[in-house]
């Protein structure tokens, strides 16, 4: 079977954009697919439309967001078949990529596939987190970027991580300061994180940015509750407030909207589907695909760059995209080994420098136990409404891992296919068995990754029968 492209890249965030540009420059034929209608990924979402037409949003989003413009322009100028609005729902081990686009389903074949599908926010299962009026911090940022929307009324941002502070400060800049920021970082963590400070200073820009964000909040008079725990969203059919403990006291803040955040974790859907090997990363407290020095997975012909391979942030994602492409171009015969090494060297050095801040951030923002091991009555599977207690009960009855829990309890069987409950279910079972998530494993992921319409499935059948492709 002849391939349609040398390289199919899934995901047009910083990793995929940088990879596409370089691959085209090296003479590879490239398809770049993304389910969004516009390039930029999560960080540079809507970068092409914010700006001239929306100066206030652009100002609120700040200069780091602007960096995306260059990447997108370079991709647009390169010889790349960019397919926006393409939802990839299957990738086979033979490197056929199936996607829905404009109401139909198509397949392309590639000699190599680069998975650049990025990260998703870590689910934050606290009591009341399924109430309308609770969203993620990333969700608020997405609405700001794509539609210039800010939440009205009392907005409470709770949890931990750089994105929490970033969004809080973007809301201040947008003239909509949050009613409160509730941070779940225990005091002792700051001391622990200090050990990683010298290394982090190699990427000092991040630390300076953190300080700047804190200052913006202080100047705007946003109350910041530090060292909070036992978060719980109050309300009936809608969220009305957030309760928490701080310094041994019960506290409560009124809220019209509660936005939760506990960092981001790799989106594993495609690498799981392909059966690539994964490991549990203790530092980042999440699963990630096993990758070699050139970001190749355990499956020949499949590489991963960017946050989908482990959390490194947007700038690291760009560099990783370029390094991965050097490896791919060598594998496909477009670069000799010395050429590959020479081409990759500057990106690799920049990547190492950028990643220096990670151990500091990972220690400081390690998710608290209450989020990894929610109380018994908290829903962990939002789709099938399965509680943490039910998962613990199944483990006590001898259920050895997430896939067995799935057949016992239906958790992970709903439309989200375990994207949301997967990380938590692995944690709970591991904890109940005195084991670790790496040992108990993760859900098996099967196609289609997104629901298909009957029409799409029918059309696909006809294609295959008529021997198309």
């Amino acid at each position, binding site marked *: 079977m002849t391939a349609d492209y040398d390289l199919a890249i899934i995901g047009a965030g910083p990793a995929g954009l940088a990879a596409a540009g370089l691959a085209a420059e090296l003479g590879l034929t490239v398809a770049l697919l993304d*389910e969004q209608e516009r390039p930029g990924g999560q960080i540079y979402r809507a970068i092409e439309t914010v700006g001239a037409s929306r100066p206030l*949003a652009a100002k*609120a989003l700040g200069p780091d967001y602007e960096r995306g413009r260059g990447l997108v322009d370079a991709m647009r100028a390169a010889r790349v078949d960019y397919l926006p609005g393409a939802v990839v729902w299957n990738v086979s081990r033979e490197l056929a990529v199936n996607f829905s686009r404009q109401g139909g389903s198509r397949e392309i074949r590639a000699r190599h596939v680069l998975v650049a599908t990025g990260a998703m926010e870590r689910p934050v299962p606290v009591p009341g987190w399924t109430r309308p*009026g609770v969203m*993620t911090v990333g969700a608020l940022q997405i*609405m700001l970027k794509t539609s*210039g*929307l800010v939440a009205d009324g009392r907005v409470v941002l709770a949890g931990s991580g750089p994105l929490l502070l970033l969004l809080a400060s973007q809301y201040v800049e947008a003239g909509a300061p949050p009613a409160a920021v509730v941070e779940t970082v225990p005091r002792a963590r700051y001391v622990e994180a200090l050990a990683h400070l010298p290394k982090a200073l190699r990427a000092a820009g991040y630390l300076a940015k953190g300080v700047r964000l804190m200052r913006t909040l202080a100047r705007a008079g946003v109350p910041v509750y530090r060292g909070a725990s036992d978060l719980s969203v109050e309300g009936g059919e809608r969220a009305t407030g957030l309760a928490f403990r701080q310094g041994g006291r019960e506290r409560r803040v009124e809220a019209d909207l509660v936005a939760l955040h506990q960092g981001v974790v790799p989106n594993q859907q495609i690498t799981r589907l392909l059966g690539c090997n994964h490991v549990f990363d203790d530092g980042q407290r999440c699963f990630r695909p096993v990758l070699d020095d050139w970001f190749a997975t355990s499956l020949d012909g499949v590489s991963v760059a960017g946050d989908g391979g482990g959390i490194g942030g947007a700038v690291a994602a760009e560099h990783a995209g370029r390094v991965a492409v050097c490896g791919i171009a060598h594998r496909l015969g477009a670069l000799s080994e010395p050429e590959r090494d020479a081409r990759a060297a500057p990106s690799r050095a920049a990547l190492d420098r950028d990643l220096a801040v990670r151990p500091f951030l990972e220690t400081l923002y390690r998710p608290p136990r209450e989020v990894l091991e929610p109380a018994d009555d908290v829903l962990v599977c939002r789709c099938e*409404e399965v509680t943490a207690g039910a998962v613990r009960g199944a483990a006590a009855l001898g259920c050895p891992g997430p896939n067995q829990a799935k057949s016992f309890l239906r958790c992970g069987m709903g*439309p989200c296919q375990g994207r949301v409950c997967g990380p938590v279910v692995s944690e709970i079972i591991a904890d109940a068995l005195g084991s670790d998530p790496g040992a108990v494993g993760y859900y098996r992921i099967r196609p289609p990754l997104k629901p298909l319409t009957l029409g799409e499935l029918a059309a696909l059948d006809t294609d295959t029968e008529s021997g198309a492709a």
Partner: protein
Amino acid sequence: MFRRLEEDAGRAPVRFRFEGREIEAYEGDTLAAALAAAGALSLRDTPVSGAPRAPYCMMGVCFDCLVEVDGRKNCQACMTVVEPGMEVRRQTGGDGAEA
């Protein structure tokens, strides 16, 4: 609930209907964003307990934004861009909300 930071000079208005009510949005808005701007947050009831749900992630991960668009169930409101004349309904019950 949500407000627009600025009137989008460059974007054309798009009208669609949600539960029979006319909603005005802008070209390029997703259904979930347009509905949030119009004060509609709860978009479905769960098949198991019938609890109301609203968009949580806005990026296609959680599937808590499932709505019926022009009679088609299981559309992710956060991933569907508004088109003029769309008829959007809340999704209720267990009918077909499975992958």
